[in-house]
């Protein structure tokens, strides 16, 4: 499974847009990108998933360039409650159930 690299931590302020980039240079053709969010003392929560170009839902957008070697999770107008750890995962289509979590990005949103 492709290894992912993402920043250890990021700081932002309420109301700003936050972009968290993840690199996955060894992503395979059958892999897709999935992002999870984890609040303190809670289990991770699925945010968004995509294969290429752009995916948007009510929570976030996911941008994936043509070479798919990186992806960017975009959180519009963050609030204090978006303070959490964000995990980027590369998941194989033939092993969708096997999630491998890295160290994630700790996002701190300040007032």
């Amino acid at each position, binding site marked *: 499974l492709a290894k992912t690299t993402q920043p250890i931590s990021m700081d932002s302020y309420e109301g700003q847009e936050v972009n968290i980039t993840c690199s996955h240079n060894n992503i395979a053709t059958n892999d*897709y990108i*999935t992002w999870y969010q*984890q609040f303190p*003392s*809670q*289990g*991770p*929560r*699925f945010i968004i*998933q995509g294969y290429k170009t752009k995916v948007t839902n009510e929570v976030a957008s996911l941008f994936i360039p043509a070479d798919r070697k990186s992806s960017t999770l975009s959180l519009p107008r963050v609030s204090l409650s978006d303070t959490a*750890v964000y*995990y980027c*995962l590369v*998941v194989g289509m033939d092993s*969708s*159930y*096997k*999630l*491998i*979590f890295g*160290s*994630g990005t700790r996002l701190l949103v300040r007032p």
Partner: protein
Amino acid sequence: DTAVSQTPKYLVTQMGNDKSIKCEQNLGHDTMYWYKQDSKKFLKIMFSYNNKELIINETVPNRFSPKSPDKAHLNLHINSLELGDSAVYFCASSQDLTISEQYFGPGTRLTVT
């Protein structure tokens, strides 16, 4: 209603004891998992069950024995607890093996003294 629930939420016990953690999901999912999150916050999959059948056993000591009495339940029994077993254990479920969207429970914080 809680989608994935675990009991207990906290568990403090001594080395050498045997303990169980229970997990239930009311989502009608076919697949359930156990994860371990250690003090460094790394989350690692331990087991996966699909329709009560073991799918993944990720180099976990055989002191850990999952049991799935039915699709909605996946319990974790741990024998001869060791200090290194101290961690937060998360149960999760997904619709089936093809879906990477997993629903996690609130976690059970196990402390072995």
